[in-house]
């Protein structure tokens, strides 16, 4: 919508509401308009499952070959490689860097913010 220039009927309707006491609550006392030193606690979304494509390829191969392992050796090897890679990735990831989704968990963010708090007054 266009910024503060509202059409005439909107302003008249809003002031009518105000006269009927449907006004927005006035802030008493007003909090300082500055960012707080903490973030709300957010439930961390679970990461996605790894190696699903390899697994489905392997299962398709099994279905064709009556669950024998000999004809499916290549797919099984690829699945094992994928699993090993995912395991290494999980072990090596450092939680202080961004996770795969690009978000930090709220506890880590709060720790960082506590180290660099908002300056409320100058001394």
């Amino acid at each position, binding site marked *: 919508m266009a910024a503060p220039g509202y059409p005439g009927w909107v302003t008249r309707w809003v002031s009518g509401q105000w006269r009927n006491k449907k006004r927005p609550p006035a802030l008493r006392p007003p909090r300082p308009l500055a960012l707080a030193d903490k973030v709300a606690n957010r439930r961390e979304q679970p*990461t996605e*499952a790894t190696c699903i494509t390899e697994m*489905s390829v392997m*299962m398709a191969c099994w*279905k064709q070959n009556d*669950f024998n392992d000999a004809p499916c050796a290549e797919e099984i090897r690829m699945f094992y490689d994928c699993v090993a890679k995912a395991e290494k990735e999980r072990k090596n990831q450092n939680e202080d860097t961004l996770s795969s989704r690009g978000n930090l968990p709220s506890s880590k963010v709060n720790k960082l913010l506590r180290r660099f708090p908002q300056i409320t007054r100058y001394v």
Partner: protein
Amino acid sequence: RIMPVRWSRYNPSYLEPEVKKESYQKPLEELTEEEREQMELKAVRPIKAAPPTLSSSVFSDPMISKFTNMMMKSGNKVLARSLMSQTLESIKRKQLEKYHKAPENEKETIECNPYVIFHQALKNCQPIIGLSNITRGGKTYQVPVPLTDNRKRFLAMKWLITECRENKHRRTMMPEKLSQELLLAFNNEGPVIKKKHVLHKMAEANRAYAHFRWW
């Protein structure tokens, strides 16, 4: 006063003992840089005591020892070890019988080494994915999940042992039944392989739930 300690944890600076004789017989020049550093580290750091199951003999095999330990009941290692050696002996006997009865062209295909048969049978019995219970919204689902190597080995050995303990005639001895099962597993037949296939089929049926995993 000596305090009996159930669990003991070594200081993290203690290193694992190296038991293999071959690693000490290599002349100095053949070692790579990392191995030289490792040797120098070993000269300075303390080393943990070697556990009694770790041996440097050519006849010892970690998989066989693990299997014997799993077969052992109430600490009777002597009995478990004798059963294991009788099993290997009976495998060898059966294979030799087959070997001498076979025609000339088939003689090379018959495997006589019981250790090779044991390892191949265990490898054939190992499942590739397992199922784990994951609860979502009150309901528990069986989700297909990749297994670690240790878990696969454990499941293969456990299935073999339970199969041999339960599904046999009252008078068959354990070594005989075990050798039978191992030979069947070596040829990808038998009830243990069937159990593995059943597990794979269940995982395949539940593949829609694979996204419930978070690792």
